[in-house]
């Protein structure tokens, strides 16, 4: 079968990862997990993978039965080390990459896991809370925003509340002015499109449309004016190795091929 958008997105993530980096693999995010594991099983065998409180190297694993079950305590059996949670969160500034989602994501890559509404005592929807993101996203070397929901409800002009800072109120030095040590969000990743942030303004910008989605569809899915570059490159082709490893070793159950 043809490669699916979710597979393309996983490959995009994989290609952003360099060998030897320190990457955190979150729970409940199968597409980013697929991307990270794909990198690990191909060009990044020396990745330092942080999963829960464990540090592991999974590059010698033949295949994963169930992509959704990597980040659960059974990963302990592969652990090189178990870090105290305090130590782990203290030293986020050493981490190269991690992922964040949001019930809202705004024009400048700020994200909201707190809730929707104006009055905190009368929220329309109360979210689960910031988890670790306020500090992690302020401090990690760079991060990717990931969501399956490219919709105007999620992609808003301005978040009702911010739980993790992206590019604040915009501008290349938005984060520097706040003093934040981390590098900020680099990409916003969805199965329909990959977005980045325009130099200078740090407004969200279309980088790749992933067919069958179209530019017009993507523009219609965000509640603000997306920056559209004059010329848009096509999403680069996947290599045979990437497809082979993804399907046979990372995602055997075909989670990224569902519905296609």
């Amino acid at each position, binding site marked *: 079968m043809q490669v699916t958008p979710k597979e393309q997105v996983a490959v995009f993530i994989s290609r952003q990862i360099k060998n030897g980096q320190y990457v955190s693999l979150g*729970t*409940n995010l199968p597409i980013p997990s697929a991307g990270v594991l794909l990198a690990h099983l191909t060009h990044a065998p020396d990745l330092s993978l942080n999963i*829960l*409180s*464990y540090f592991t190297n999974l590059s*010698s*694993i*033949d*295949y*994963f*039965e*169930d992509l*959704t*079950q*990597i980040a659960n*305590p*059974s990963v*302990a059996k*592969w652990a090189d080390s*178990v870090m*105290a*949670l*305090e130590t782990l*969160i*203290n030293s*986020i500034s050493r981490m190269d990459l991690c992922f964040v989602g949001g019930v809202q994501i705004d024009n400048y890559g700020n994200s*909201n896991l*707190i*809730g929707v509404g104006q*009055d*905190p*005592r*009368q*929220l329309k*929807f*109360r*979210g*689960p*809370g*910031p*988890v*670790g*993101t*306020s*500090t*992690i996203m*302020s*401090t990690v070397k760079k991060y990717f925003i990931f969501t399956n929901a490219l919709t105007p409800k999620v992609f808003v002009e301005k978040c009702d*509340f*911010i*739980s*993790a*800072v992206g590019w*604040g109120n915009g501008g290349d030095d938005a*984060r520097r*002015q*706040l*003093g*934040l*040590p981390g590098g900020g969000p680099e990409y916003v990743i969805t199965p329909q499109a990959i977005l980045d942030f325009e130099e200078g303004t740090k407004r969200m910008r279309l980088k790749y449309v992933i067919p069958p989605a179209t530019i017009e569809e993507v523009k219609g899915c965000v509640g603000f004016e997306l920056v559209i570059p004059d010329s848009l490159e096509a999403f680069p082709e996947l290599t045979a190795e990437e497809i082979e490893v993804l399907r046979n070793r990372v995602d055997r159950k075909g989670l990224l091929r569902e519905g296609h």
Partner: protein
Amino acid sequence: MINNGDTIGIGGFVTTNKPWAFLRALMRVRKKDLTVVASPSGLEIDLMVAMGLIKTLMTPYVGAEAIAPVGPIYSKQAGKSFTIEETDLMTLATMLRARIQALPFLPAWGPVGTSLMELNSKLRWVEDPFGGPPLVAVPPVKIDVAIIHACHADKYGNVQHLGPCFLDPMLAQAAEKVIVQVEKIVSNEEIRRNPLATTIPCQQVTAVVQAPYGAHPSASQNYYRLDDVHYREYLKVAKAFVEGDQTLLKDYIARYIDQPKDLAGYLEAVGMEKILNLGLEECSDAGNT
């Protein structure tokens, strides 16, 4: 040991090592007006909110991940029947550390640029005396009683998690009293066989209780998986409550909180076959090596 109006600290992480046996005992006697300081939390918070026990909540997360992104009753009642002092994990750890170090504040990056300043009444700004931009000053939090679930302890209260220990050691250090429920009380000799594994030393522990399966329905590290069926059963109850039907919740509380006279009674109410099955290794488990 716990009074109405106390600040309690709850250990564990989301759906792992939650001290449910203690929490059910607390719910049974309807201890109220509690300030709850908790590591990322599961649906125990949702149930405590439903029962009207929580006055103020400080936790970075309430949900059950793939089972439920957010606790339904918690989500509905937030800001109404209880107040949230918004915090992320590191800010919470910083509050605990300020208390442990007997400092009036510690600086943090986490809340800078976020809504935490507006949604947490405890935070202040602090100047950087070295000339950089201001940071957020996080004050200490005092915990009256911390309640923790772990694998093993000896009768003196030396506790071993034998895996990740979450914020539990910090909660213990920050608390006036610490009560620990364990799957098994072991001999002091067994603890001393691997003193490096001791996560909370006995001098910090007020009481230790053997409570096998006491983390149910959450997972207990090295002992059993989370009971996702039970969590889903509770979710139905909670969703009905949110939609105005209180009978299911009343039944749930009667069946699992009020009627069982002790842990054994609770385990029988759940059904021992279900409980024992949670301790089996899942054979369809990932990969190889």
